[in-house]
Structure formats: structure tokens, C-alpha cells
């Protein structure tokens, strides 16, 4: 028997202060009312640091700083803005080990993912949009596209630094300034990014970071001097934001929830499909808006596929996020764990059959074993609601048309997967799926050049690629 010894990444590459302030106008400062909140390591429940909780006045100051900086930043030649972004990209590459460890500490995601997925993509996004800054006239949005103004950006906890990059890089490249609110449970990498901005000598006020809970974000998106709102998070909050900005004329992009179908046809490359399904739902503990949370199996291969999937799941290594061999890390928060637990219990109560591999979970921290439910139908809540955890609902279908119909039978429309070796079938199914990203014979692939965003209640607007510029140009 081959059991891997612990292979922990060194925590010492990150030095954490006990307390972090807000990053406003180029300097760190405490909240006006002195309020703070703790951010914890979800794998151990250890408090990592106290972080300032921005109140309305703090948000006002941040927006004012961004407004002041907008005048000069937007007037800079694009080529000069580009060089700032290239600098930022380089600094992120140089500090990627530190930032990866930090991300795993604060978020609970495996170091293998923060190291091999998040951080490379973060740097790549800044490189990509840096190059656009002096080429905007060629982007297809008119001969003289102008920045919108001050962008209020609210990001989620599942990919803290990557979501920051998705938001900040295109905003800065197009000449906007930014007030960004990271998620309450994962504020640290955004604050380290503030230090990256400092090292890059980015002018004060171009990027401001206000940490806090939902109320901070609500105040930011409603702020009358914010011209553009960008939000990634739940569909319910997205609805509130869309309603809040109604009638204000603010530009909005929303990247919201999903309940993606991952469709496996009987002619699929089975071993890669198993990998794709595993990656689709267990990548980042299933804390992925585009997770392939509904597996649609063609009945003729369903049994064999499930056997292979379960066998593969027994090799998933759940545990210490800083161990280089960990595949599935900690659930991000107690609240999220409660939500996953509740929906899973509903799945069982509704008669679906629950299965998890035999995997020991640590005593402290927030953990949930990789789980699949079989015998799920479209009528089950676990087939309709976003669980945002390592829980896969398995449904079956008989014909391609039925697969498409079931895949589309949801208010969401963010992503979908297709597994088949038949090209014409892939193209036909991809054409009929109502979702913004279709992965055929792959899953959960991301690239700065590739537009990302949803249909229907998964939101509107696109992030990434040339398309991602549009939201930040008037």
C-alpha cells in the first residue's frame, strides 16, 4: 500500500499582520468607527487576522478617492496604463507562491489549485488586459471609446484573487478607477493585492479596497457616484443589485449562480469524462458558479459510468489545504457548510440515494466529503438549486434531445459540459444549450482571452476577452 506522507507547503512564505485596514487613496487606514471583523482559516477555524469593517463613510471616502484619481488615470495615455498593469502582472508572478499560500489559508482551497490554477490565471489576466489598454480603438466598440468612471466591484469568496483580477484588470486597462469589496470570509488576498499596487507605484486612488460584509457592498453599489457596478456572487444578491441600480443609469454586469449540466453520451471518452465530471464538481470544493453540478448520463452507460466515477472518487484526497497532495480542501465557512448540509439532507429526504467515499475528515474546521446523489430527477431540489459545494446530482436521459431539454430546464444558464466523441453531435448539442460557456470534452477551463458569463438568471455581461472590455467603456 502506498500512502503519501504529508507534504505541506510552507506557511512561512506569508507573513500576516494581526490587523488590516482599508486601502483608500493609496494608504491603509482603519474604519472610521474602528469596527473590525475576524477572518478565519476554514481548515482550522484559527483566526488569521482582524480586518477593518468599512462603514458608509469609509465607502464614501473610497469612492471620492476613486473619483479624484479618475481624472488623471483616465487621461493617461493607454500605453502608460498598460505598463502599470504589466508591472502588476509581473509582481504577481514574483509573489505567486506567497499569494497562493495566502489564498489557501484564507479560503481553504488546496494549494495545488491556488498554485496551479488561481495564481497563474491572475497574472495572465493582468497581462492580457494590459495589452488592451492602448488598443481600445481597435476593440470594436467605436473609434474613441471612453472609460465609464468609478467602478464599484463586489466579488465572492470562491476565487478571491482571481475574481479581483477579472474585475480590476479590465477596469484599469480601460481607464476606470476602482473601489473593490472582497468577500467577508476572504479579504486577505485583496489586501495583499493592495500591496502589489503599492509596489507597482500605481497612483493613489486608482484601486481602493474596502473590506466588510454585505452591508458594505450594498452601500458601494448604491453609491450615487459609482458609475459602473460589477458583481459576482449569488443570483439573489444579483437581483437586489439589479433592482437597486434601476433608474440610476449605472452600468451593471452580473455574474451569478449556475446549475450546470454535464452531459455524458454513450460514446464519450469514458476515462476523461470521469475526470471531467470529478473536476467539474469537486474542483475548489464545488465552490464554483459554473460547477457541473448536474450529471446527465445516457442510460445505456449510466451504470458503468457510475461505477467508474465512484472508484475515482475513492482516490480523492480530502484534507489540509496546504498539503500539496490534497485534492479537496475545506468548505469556506460555517455558513456555507450549513447550507450544503441542509440541501444534502433534503436530497436524502426527497428519496435520492446518497453516496460518499470512505474518507476521514479533520476534526476542526469546515469539511464536507465529496458526495453524489443518484436517482435524482428534475423535480428534486438538489437538481434545481445551486448547492455550491462538493455535491453532484446524477440524472439520466435516453436521447440527445432529452439531454438538451433537461439541461436547459433551469432558470440558470452559466455553463454546461458535453462528453462525446462524435463531432456533429457535440456541435448540435452545444448549439442548443442555453448557457454562456460550453465545455465539450473538457470542463472548468478558464483563460483571460475567453469570455465568461451567463444566460438567463446566471447574470449578464461578459468578463474576459475582448468582450470583457465592453462593460467598462462608454
Amino acid at each position, binding site marked *: 500500500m502506498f500512502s503519501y506522507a504529508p507534504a505541506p507547503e510552507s506557511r512561512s512564505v506569508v507573513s500576516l499582520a494581526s490587523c488590516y485596514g482599508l486601502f483608500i487613496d493609496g494608504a491603509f487606514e482603519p474604519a472610521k468607527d474602528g469596527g473590525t471583523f475576524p477572518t478565519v482559516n476554514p481548515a482550522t477555524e484559527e483566526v488569521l487576522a482582524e480586518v477593518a469593517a468599512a462603514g458608509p463613510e469609509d465607502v464614501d471616502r473610497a469612492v471620492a478617492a476613486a473619483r479624484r484619481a479618475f481624472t488623471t488615470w483616465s487621461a493617461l495615455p493607454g500605453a502608460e496604463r498598460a505598463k502599470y498593469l504589466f508591472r502588476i502582472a509581473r509582481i504577481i508572478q514574483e509573489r505567486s507562491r506567497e499569494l497562493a499560500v495566502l489564498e489557501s489559508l484564507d479560503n481553504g482551497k488546496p494549494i495545488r489549485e491556488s498554485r496551479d490554477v488561481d495564481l497563474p490565471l491572475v497574472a*495572465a489576466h493582468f497581462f492580457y488586459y494590459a495589452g488592451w489598454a492602448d488598443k481600445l480603438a481597435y476593440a*470594436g466598440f*467605436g473609434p474613441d471609446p471612453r472609460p465609464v468612471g468609478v467602478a464599484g466591484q463586489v466579488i465572492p469568496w470562491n476565487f478571491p484573487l482571481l475574481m479581483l483580477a477579472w474585475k480590476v484588470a479590465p477596469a484599469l486597462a480601460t481607464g476606470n478607477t476602482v473601489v473593490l469589496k472582497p468577500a467577508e470570509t476572504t479579504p486577505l488576498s485583496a489586501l495583499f493585492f493592495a500591496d502589489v499596487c503599492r509596489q507597482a507605484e500605481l497612483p493613489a486612488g486608482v484601486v481602493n479596497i474596502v473590506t466588510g460584509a454585505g452591508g458594505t457592498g450594498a452601500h458601494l453599489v448604491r453609491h450615487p457616484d459609482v458609475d459602473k457596478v460589477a458583481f459576482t456572487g449569488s*443570483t439573489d444578491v*444579483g*437581483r*437586489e443589485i*439589479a*433592482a437597486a441600480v*434601476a*433608474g440610476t*443609469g449605472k452600468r451593471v454586469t*452580473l455574474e*451569478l449562480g449556475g446549475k450546470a449540466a454535464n452531459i455524458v453520451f454513450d460514446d464519450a471518452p469514458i476515462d476523461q469524462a470521469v475526470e471531467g465530471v470529478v473536476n467539474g464538481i469537486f474542483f475548489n470544493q464545488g465552490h464554483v458558479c459554473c460547477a457541473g453540478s448536474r450529471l446527465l448520463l445516457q442510460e445505456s452507460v449510466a451504470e458503468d459510468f457510475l461505477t467508474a466515477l465512484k472508484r475515482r472518487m475513492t482516490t480523492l484526497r480530502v484534507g489540509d489545504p496546504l498539503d500539496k497532495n490534497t485534492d479537496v480542501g475545506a468548505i469556506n465557512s460555517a455558513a456555507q457548510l450549513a447550507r450544503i448540509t441542509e440541501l444534502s439532507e433534503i436530497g436524502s429526504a426527497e428519496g435520492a440515494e446518497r453516496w460518499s467515499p470512505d474518507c476521514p475528515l479533520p476534526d476542526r474546521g469546515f469539511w464536507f466529503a465529496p458526495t453524489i446523489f443518484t436517482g435524482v430527477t428534475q423535480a428534486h431540489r438538489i437538481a434545481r438549486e445551486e448547492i455550491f459545494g462538493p455535491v453532484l446530482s446524477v440524472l439520466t436521459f435516453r436521447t440527445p434531445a432529452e439531454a438538451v431539454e433537461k439541461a436547459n430546464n433551469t*432558470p440558470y444558464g452559466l455553463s454546461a459540459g458535453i462528453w462525446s466523441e462524435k463531432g456533429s453531435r*457535440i456541435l448540435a448539442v*452545444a448549439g442548443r444549450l442555453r*448557457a*454562456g*460557456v*460550453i*465545455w*465539450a*470534452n*473538457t470542463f472548468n*477551463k478558464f*483563460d483571460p*482571452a*475567453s*469570455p*465568461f*458569463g451567463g*444566460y*438567463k*438568471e446566471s*447574470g*449578464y455581461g*461578459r468578463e474576459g*476577452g475582448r*468582450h470583457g472590455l*465592453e462593460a467598462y467603456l462608454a
Partner: protein
Amino acid sequence: MPKSSTRLTVRKTYKLFIGGKFPRSESGRTFVVNGDNVALASRKDARDAVVAARAAFGGWSGTTAYNRGQVLYRIAEMLQARRAEFKALKVPGDELDAAVDRWVWYAGWSDKIAQVAGGANPVAGPFLNVSTPEPTGVVAVIAPTSLLGLVSVIAPAIVTGNTTVVLAPEPQTAITLAEVLATSDVPGGVVNILTGRYPETAPWLATHADVNALDLTGAEPGELAAELERDAAGTLKRVIRPPAGSSGFDADPGLRPMTALLETKTVWHPKGY
């Protein structure tokens, strides 16, 4: 045969346009506009129109771009042929020409917009990655009053494969345009036109869960428009807001009237032997 000096003119009855047919309002209501009794659409008419638009969406969005271009060009031909009717409705000749030309302009976009708005993305890996624009779905439109305004909101929506429910404040012009559409090979349900008072019907469309987008181009900026936008947030509809100034529709529309009602679908596939 001697011409009778007492012959009565046969008048046109202005009804709604739903699913390719011209029904009266299910409510039986009418209102008087310029001396005509015009159907006054109800919320149930709006509901029926959404059903018709949804039913038409699969076929219309699934037809080839070339075919949709042909249909839009046919609309231009039919509009040109019916100039006299619109002139009788006091549509200025310049505007009529512009409306015909706008259909022609959009007809040409049908098989080009995907090349301009989509394309291959050079991702860092062994993948083919292609973004394609696709129609959003069923679009509810609060239309401007003018013929050119009406054409300028309907054409960009349908050229890419969306289907529409149009609330038209100027009934005679709108229904005469519907007659053009009905004789132009536009499948029933692609354009549905409801005449009446949009403050009454629009909220039902703004909150309707089977409507994907709301075009407020013809709405007055103000509290009602804001309220409709808030309603639309309930199912996260795409919203085209009322234009800030009344700039009219003479200028080059650009791409935004089309792209605002398009989704970008990005498909990945590995490349390997």
C-alpha cells in the same frame, strides 16, 4: 358602370398582431385614436403574445442567418410597396425612406454580426475556443411612436433570432407595419404587436418569467421606467434603458441595439489526435 357618388369607404379595423394573426383584444376593449376604434391590449393579451413569441423562438433562432436576412429584406420590399398607406397615416416621406433603408441595413447584418461580435479566442492551451453571439430569447419592447423608431427597435431584435412582444403607442402605424410583416414571410409569433397603454401592460411583461429582455427605448425616462427596470430585475432580464436625450433614430444605430439583445456563448474543445 356609373360611379356611385354615395359609395362608403371600407375602413380598416385596427386589431392586435399575435402569433401571425390579427385578433381583437381578449378583453373586448377598444380605445379611440384619431377617430379609429383601436384594440386596447390587456395583460392577458400580453400573456398570449409571450406564449406566441416563445413558441416562435426555437424556429426563428434556429433558421439560418441567410434566411433571416432574406426575410428582413422582404420586409423592406413590402414596406416600400405600402408607402401610400403610411403616407396616409402622415408618416413623412423621408422617415418612410429611412425606415425601408433601416430594414435593408439590418437585413445585411444577419450573417455578419456573428463575425463581428464573435470569433476564435487564442487561449493558452490545446483548445479550440470560439465565441458566438446568440439571441437572448423573448424580448418585450416598449416601442417609440414613430415608424422609424418602431423599425429601429424591432429590426435589431429579430435579425439575430430574438422574438418580440412590442407595445406600440401609435396603433395605426404599428398595425400597418404588422400587415407588412404578415406579408413578408416573417413566421407568426416572431413579432407580436400590442396596441394600448404601456403603463398598463408593460409591468406584466417586465415581471413575466418567460421574457428574457426588456427594451425601454420608447418609455419616458422617469419613475415608471425605473419601476419597470426594477421589475425586470426579478428574473434578471436584460434591460435597454430609455435614451437619455431624445436624439431620434436618424443616426447610425451602431452595434449596440443588436449586441444588447445577444448572449455570448463560448465553446471549448480540446485539440488532439
